[in-house]
């Protein structure tokens, strides 16, 4: 992990993202933001707070509720040299923009034989865990990982969120940048001044010798809590935060699995066809011989998200699920 320079403060993730947008809009007049209620209101989660006053209504656009047109407009603006950032209020609305993102943003460069670039960022808030129901609680990053030509990022800390968003805006490729809503308010150390977190580089959030947990976003926090619990029993867990899901940092992941010989992949998304499946597949492709135990996926159940608290808790992966998976791969009998 690159060391932050300058003074360090505590910021929430939404404050860190707001700083990233402000700094990049100052840096490049081609950067603009478009979304719903992002101008005067500053966005539902205040990520675009203060931008309208600073940059005006041509660069901070309160758009009609037309997510597909917002995404399509961003593709068009990118084609003529701008660097638009689209805010989806709720990440589930990606279903409305899939054609523009998958059939247009992700392919335009390739279809043109490399003649064009599409530098745009699509941000969206993953709003599970708070009773928002089935249409406001999905974790859909795997859809974009599957689509060629896109970069997919999901940060877990304010530091990573700021540095990765700045990197995403400067990158010449279309980037899908998903933010866990419950992490917006979580504070973390963020240095003052300009820095970027490189795209495509995973970060070892905790070192350990017995089990590798590969995860991202909220999964990192589940894994770190689980790691603290099992450490009391003498099991040392290494937590690898992918940060970027595509491209995939196989080097960091493979090195960790070669050290520990055990793999757990954690995601808050529904299990089938998930990023956890991809993590397991990549590891078995590359370093199968290092594995001492069968890899385990910890994921959400393959259901729409239920509303009532006990049901949502039952569907989403919890710390105890990660603990159980750790005990399984180290050969301890699980109580559950």
């Amino acid at each position, binding site marked *: 992990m690159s060391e932050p320079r300058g003074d360090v403060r505590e910021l929430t993730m939404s404050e860190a993202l707001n700083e990233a947008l402000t700094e990049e809009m100052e840096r490049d*007049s*081609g950067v*603009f933001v478009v979304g719903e209620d992002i101008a005067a209101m500053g966005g539902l989660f205040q990520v675009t707070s203060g931008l309208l006053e600073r940059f005006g209504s*041509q*660069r901070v*656009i309160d*758009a*009609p509720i*037309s997510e*597909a*047109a*917002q*995404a*399509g*407009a*961003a*593709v*068009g*603006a*990118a*084609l*003529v*040299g*701008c660097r*638009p950032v689209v805010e989806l209020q709720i990440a589930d609305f990606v279903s409305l923009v899939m*054609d*523009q993102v998958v*059939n*247009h943003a992700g392919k*335009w*460069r*390739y*279809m*043109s*034989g*490399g*003649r*064009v*670039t599409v*530098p745009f960022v699509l941000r969206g808030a993953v709003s599970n865990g708070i009773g928002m129901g089935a249409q406001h609680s999905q974790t859909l990053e795997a859809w974009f990982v599957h689509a*060629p*030509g896109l*970069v997919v990022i999901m940060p877990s800390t304010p530091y990573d969120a700021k540095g990765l968003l700045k990197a995403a805006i400067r*990158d*010449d*490729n279309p980037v899908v940048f998903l933010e866990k809503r419950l992490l917006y308010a979580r504070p973390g150390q963020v240095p003052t001044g300009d820095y970027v977190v*490189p*795209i*495509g*580089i995973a970060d070892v959030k905790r070192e350990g010798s017995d089990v590798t947990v590969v995860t991202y976003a909220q999964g990192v926090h589940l894994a770190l809590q689980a790691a603290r619990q099992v450490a009391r029993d003498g099991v040392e867990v290494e937590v690898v935060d992918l940060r*970027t899901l595509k*491209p*995939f*940092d*196989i*080097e960091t992941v493979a090195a960790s699995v070669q050290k520990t010989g055990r793999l757990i992949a954690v995601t808050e998304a529904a299990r089938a066809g998930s990023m956890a499946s991809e993590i397991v597949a990549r590891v078995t492709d590359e370093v199968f011989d290092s594995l001492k135990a069968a890899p385990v996926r910890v994921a959400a159940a393959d259901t729409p998200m239920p509303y009532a608290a006990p049901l949502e808790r039952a569907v989403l992966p919890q710390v105890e699920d990660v603990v159980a998976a750790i005990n399984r791969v180290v050969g301890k009998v699980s109580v559950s």
Partner: protein
Amino acid sequence: MSPDAAPLEELLLRMWQIRWFELRAMELFEEKLIRGSVHPYIGMEAIAVGVCAALEQKDYITSTHRGHGHCVAKGLDLKLMMAEIIGREDGYCRGRGGSMHITAIDEGMLGADAIVAGSSAIAVGAAHGLRLKGHDGVIVCFFGDGASNQGILHEACNLGAVLAAPVVFVCENNQWAISTPAAASTRIDNIADRAAGYGFPGVIVDGNDVLAVRDVTATAVARARAGDGPTLLEPKSYRITAHSAATKTDLRPPEELDAWRARDPILSFSRYLNTEAGVAAERLEQIEEEARADVETAVEFALASPRPEPESALEDVYAPAKWATAGRLS
């Protein structure tokens, strides 16, 4: 010849280039030199040529699956177009795009889009982006009557109006979506009427009259460039061929087809040039021959161009970036 005939002859040349390009492309498809499909623009040449005659070099277009005519009208190189649709390395997109995806931004062609209505929001955003960049270019978005019932077009028209984006929407009403007549797809006679719902002008024009199309486009472009927002143009025309070179079924009534054949936009413009602009019949023939020769040169160029190397299939998925060249990532 009257002094102002030269620019009109140029329009006729472009129309003939489109016609012969499409006729040759259909032959090359039958000869299996073109894969997939080809969607000919035959019968609609006056629309693309009329619209682009009202544009300047700094203006851009977006196009459709039936896009060759737009490319020719915007001034793209026939050789690079033909090489692209034959799938050769010298094509505009190095053979990665094909007939439905010619892109040439430096020439003002943002891209042909084979998702019906797919480029409408892209056009709006490009228009807004140009303005942010301090550029006074206008974007023309071509689409068809079939596209007018896609949701994204509604969103794009409304967003374009709200932003007062410098964009001109051109609904090429060729009456049919493969086998479904426009009348079976809407309960209104004119797509242009929908413009009222967005708060901008809608203008119907004879799509087989190149000068009429040019003139209404000029008004729409001036409005867009002045910052007054979009216009929806509806040139009414007809496609003379079936939907595509690969479509063998054509359910359209033969008498309807005959009626439109009799209104061939190239022949009627030729007659106009002869009778109103004093262009001699021999000169008109010469223009057609010139176009035909240009297309032949393009075919020869394309067939001599190398096929892409298989290992290059993995190139250009991503733009150059530090992470893409680090060698550790995939």
